[in-house]
């Protein structure tokens, strides 16, 4: 595959995903999801515990210190989308290198 085509897919696809995260996330429904709904209806919501030993840096998809939800959620979405892309791309690239090295031997 040509290099430009590989870059085109990565760049175009990532742009599309970031666009979705930034532009659509403010319109996402805040209603409880399927499991939260069942937990409320069947009365086991209170079993949820917050883990004292672990606090994620960006709670509830809101950047700390950014007050406006219209700004904070899209920012969190953009960061998460790019981070996820980078991690999976890196893992896939590493696996491909290892495959090539094994087959060269």
């Amino acid at each position, binding site marked *: 595959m040509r290099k430009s085509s590989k870059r085109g897919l990565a760049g175009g696809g*990532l742009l599309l995903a970031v666009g*979705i995260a930034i532009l*659509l996330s403010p*319109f996402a*429904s805040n*209603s409880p*999801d399927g499991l939260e709904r069942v937990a409320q209806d069947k009365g086991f919501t209170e079993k949820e515990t917050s883990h004292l030993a672990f606090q*994620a840096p960006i709670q509830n*998809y809101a950047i700390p210190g950014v007050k406006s939800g219209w700004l904070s959620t899209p920012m969190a979405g953009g960061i*998460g989308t790019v981070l996820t892309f980078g991690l999976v791309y890196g893992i896939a690239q590493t696996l491909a290198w290892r495959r090539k090295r094994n087959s060269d031997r």
Partner: protein
Amino acid sequence: MHIPDGFLDTKTWLALDLASATTLGVAVRKTRNIIGEKQIPLMGVMAAFIFAAQMINFPVAAGTSGHFMGGVLAAILLGPFSAGLILAVVLIVQCVVFQDGGITALGANIFNMGIIGNIGGYMLYLAARRLGGKSRVSTGAVFVAAWLSIVLAAGACAVELALSGTVPLKVALPAMAGVHAIIGVGEGLITVLVLKFIMRVRPDLLELEKV
């Protein structure tokens, strides 16, 4: 259906950590055996798209929302094991960076949304394709496979809640399956639409070797 901390007891989440870690180990080896230049960007883009789409909760019946899961979409393009790897990374980022899904429930969430749904849905998709004898993607098979992946994940979640003593199975299973049967319609529609879009703009991506 990201399970938070506290819903599962220790034996259940430990067992699911083990099950998910073992399956992901297999997935890494299988993916490494087939991965080529074309799969690398597509895996990254698929993960980015799934993360983004999972943020967009859409309303379903009676004050409830659901969101796209993406397992069957990734499995149809890249295969169920690569899909498992992608979903695992999405779920790890959601958990570790955004506290979406409990840290003790991470293995369970990967098992439900990254493994059971993809593999079950993809197997149904393959069976339907074989029966239809068509080499092209059949819209009906894609829709049902994507729908099934959500219901399977919800069913697994219900079983885990019951094993943990959180809620009896006869209460959890119909409730979880019922609400997710509705959310699954959204999953089916989005999966079909995205595949149709890819068929139009990059049909070559449907012909990749899958694992």
